[in-house]
C-alpha cells in the first residue's frame, strides 16, 4: 500500500523535475523513490505477520479492491527490485527530459496493482497501467523503424488481448455473479463441490486463459513477443522481460489459485498442455536464431512455459517455486541483457559474434556472463537450478509427462546458451565494443551475481520466509 503510493507520487515528481533537465539528472530521484518503496515491503511484511497493520491498509478501502497479503508483498518486492536494476543498469542514453523514467515508474505502479489485486477490476486496471506506458517505451526511438514496428505490434496485440481477457471476465461475472476474488472463490467452491458444469464459467475461464496466455506470451499466442523484444530499445526490452513477466505471472498465479482453485479440473489440463508446448517451441525456436536478442526473446518464451508449471502445482509449493524462479530469471536476464547492451556496437547488430574473445579481455564481465548463462540454463549452484528444481518438484506427482518434456527443453536450452559461452572463450578476435563499467554498474552487477549464487546455494533465504495466505 505505502510502496504503491510512494511510487505513484514519485513518478509525478520525476516527471515534473525532469521537464528541463537531462534524463541522467532525474535518475537518482527515480532510484531513490524505488528504493524507498522497497524498504516498506519488509516493514509491511513484518507488520502484517504480527498483525500490526490497520485493516484499512491491508484491504484497501472502500470495497476491498487491493489486498496486501504476504504473497502480494513478496512478488511486489521482487518486482520493485527488478525495476531498480533496470533503471540503474540501462540509463546510459543522452535523452532530454525524464518522461521515459516517469513512464517506467507508472508502469511499476500497474505491476504492483497486478500483484496485489483482490478484484478483477483492479487486475484489469493493473494490466492497463502496466501496458500503456510500455507501448510508448517500446516506440521511444521515434525515427527507428524497428522500434516503430515493435510499438505498433505491441499496442495492437496488447489491446486485442485485453479485449479477450475482458470477455472472459464478463462471462465469469455472468456465471458467478461476482468480480471479487473472495466471492469468486466461494462461488467456484460451490460449483466444484456440487459438480455443476456452468457453461458460462467454463467459457469464461477458457477465454480468460487465452487473454493471459497472450500477456505472458505462451505458445500459440507468443508470436508477437520476439518481434516486440527485438525491435524495442534495450531498456524497454529488459523491462518487458523482467518487470512485466513478474507482474503477469504474479497476477496469473493469484487469480487461478485464489479464485479458481476448487475447479482445477476444468483448467489444469489446458495449462499443462500449453506449458509443454511453450517449453518445446520456445527452446527449439531459440536454437535457430542468428540474433542474440531474438534468442533471448525466444528463451523468455520458454521460461514462461516453465513458470506455467507453478500454476498447476499446489498453492504453497507453487508459490515458493515461482518466487525463486522469478528471482533467478529476472537477475540472470538483467545481467545477460546488460552485457549484450554494452558490447553491441551502438544499437544494431546483436549477433553472437559480439561476445567473441570476451572472456579473455574482461575478467569481471565474463564471470557475470558465465553465472548468468548457468542460471538461465539451470546448472546447479545457481538460482536458475533452484527455481527449476522447485518447479519440477512441485508437479512431479501430478504431471510426470510434463516433467519429461521440461527436462528435454532444458537440455535443448543448454545448446544455445553455450553458443555464447563458446564465442566468449573460444571465439576469434573481439568484435563487440569494449565493456566499460563505472562504479554503479560494477556494484549492481556484483549484487546480481551475489543474488543468483546465494539463492542457488541457499534457496532457504527465500523459502524460509514466513507467509500467511490471504485471509
Amino acid at each position, binding site marked *: 500500500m505505502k510502496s504503491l503510493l510512494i511510487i505513484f507520487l514519485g513518478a509525478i515528481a520525476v516527471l515534473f523535475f525532469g521537464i528541463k533537465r537531462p534524463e541522467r539528472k532525474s535518475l537518482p530521484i527515480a532510484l531513490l523513490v524505488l528504493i524507498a518503496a522497497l524498504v516498506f515491503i519488509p516493514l509491511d511484511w513484518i507488520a502484517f505477520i504480527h498483525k500490526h497493520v490497520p485493516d484499512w491498509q491491508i484491504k484497501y478501502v472502500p470495497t476491498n479492491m487491493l489486498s496486501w497479503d504476504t504473497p502480494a508483498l513478496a512478488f511486489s518486492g521482487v518486482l520493485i527490485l527488478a525495476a531498480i536494476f533496470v533503471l540503474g543498469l540501462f540509463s546510459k542514453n543522452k535523452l532530454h527530459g525524464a518522461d521515459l523514467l516517469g513512464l517506467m515508474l507508472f508502469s511499476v505502479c500497474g505491476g504492483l496493482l497486478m500483484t496485489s489485486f483482490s478484484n*478483477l*477490476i483492479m487486475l*484489469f*486496471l493493473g494490466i*492497463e497501467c502496466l501496458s*500503456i506506458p510500455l*507501448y*510508448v517505451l517500446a*516506440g521511444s526511438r*521515434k*525515427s527507428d*523503424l*524497428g522500434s*516503430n*514496428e*515493435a*510499438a*505498433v*505490434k505491441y*499496442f*495492437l496485440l496488447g*489491446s*486485442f488481448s*485485453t*479485449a*479477450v481477457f*475482458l*470477455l472472459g*471476465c*464478463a*462471462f465469469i*461475472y*455472468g456465471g458467478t*455473479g*461476482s*468480480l*471479487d476474488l473472495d466471492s469468486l472463490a466461494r462461488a467456484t467452491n460451490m460449483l466444484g463441490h456440487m459438480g455443476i458444469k456452468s457453461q458460462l464459467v467454463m467459457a469464461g475461464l477458457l477465454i480468460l486463459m487465452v487473454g493471459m496466455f497472450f500477456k505472458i506470451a505462451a505458445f500459440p499466442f507468443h508470436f508477437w513477443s*520476439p*518481434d516486440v523484444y*527485438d*525491435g524495442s530499445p534495450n531498456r524497454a526490452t529488459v523491462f518487458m522481460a523482467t518487470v512485466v513477466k513478474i507482474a503477469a505471472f504474479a497476477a496469473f498465479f493469484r487469480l487461478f489459485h485464489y479464485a479458481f482453485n476448487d475447479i482445477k479440473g476444468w483448467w489444469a489440463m489446458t495449462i499443462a498442455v500449453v506449458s509443454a508446448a511453450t517449453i518445446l517451441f520456445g527452446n527449439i525456436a531459440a536454437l*535457430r*536464431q*542468428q*540474433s542474440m536478442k*531474438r534468442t533471448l526473446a525466444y528463451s523468455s518464451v520458454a521460461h514462461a512455459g516453465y513458470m506455467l508449471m507453478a500454476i498447476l502445482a499446489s498453492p504453497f509449493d507453487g508459490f515458493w517455486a515461482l518466487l525463486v524462479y522469478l528471482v533467478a530469471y529476472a537477475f540472470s536476464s538483467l545481467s545477460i541483457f546488460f552485457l549484450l547492451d554494452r558490447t553491441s556496437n551502438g544499437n544494431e547488430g546483436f549477433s553472437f559474434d559480439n561476445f567473441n574473445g570476451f572472456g579473455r579481455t574482461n575478467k569481471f564481465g565474463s564471470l557475470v556472463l558465465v553465472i548468468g548463462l548457468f542460471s538461465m540454463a539451470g546448472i546447479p549452484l545457481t538460482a536458475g537450478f533452484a527455481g527449476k528444481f522447485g518447479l519440477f518438484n512441485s508437479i512431479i506427482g501430478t504431471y510426470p509427462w510434463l516433467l519429461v518434456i521440461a527436462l528435454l527443453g532444458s537440455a535443448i536450452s543448454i545448446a544455445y546458451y553455450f553458443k555464447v559461452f563458446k564465442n566468449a572463450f573460444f571465439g576469434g578476435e573481439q568484435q563487440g565494443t569494449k565493456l566499460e563499467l563505472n562504479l554503479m554498474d560494477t556494484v549492481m552487477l556484483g549484487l546480481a551475481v551475489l543474488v543468483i549464487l546465494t539463492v542457488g546455494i541457499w534457496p532457504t533465504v527465500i523459502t524460509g520466509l514466513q507467509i500467511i495466505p490471504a485471509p
Partner: protein
Amino acid sequence: MNTDSIFSSLDISHYIYLSSVLFCIGLFGVLTRRNAIVLLMCIELMLNAVNLLFVAFSSYMGDSAGQLFVFFIMVVAAAEAAVGLAIIVMIYRNVRSTDVGLFDKLKG
C-alpha cells in the same frame, strides 16, 4: 406497449448472443484488416461488446459491480486509443502510410 417491457421481456441469452456476435465481428476485423486505424476501431468494437455484456449481466443479476467495471473499461479504452493514435501518427510520419502490412522488418 412501452419500450421498457420489451427489454425486460428479453432473455439474458439474447444479450449474450448479441455481444458474442459483436465481439466476433471485431475479432474478424482485427484478423483480416491491415489499416492500423481500422484495427483500432475493431478493438474498440470488441471492448464495447464486452461493455454490453457486463451491463446486461449486471442488470440481470441486480448487481452494480458489472456497471462499475464498464466505467473503468470506457476510461481505459479512451486512454489506450490516445496512445494508439499517437503511435499511428508516429509511424505515419516515418513511412507515410498506416498499413500494418508494411511492417515486416522484424523476422526470424
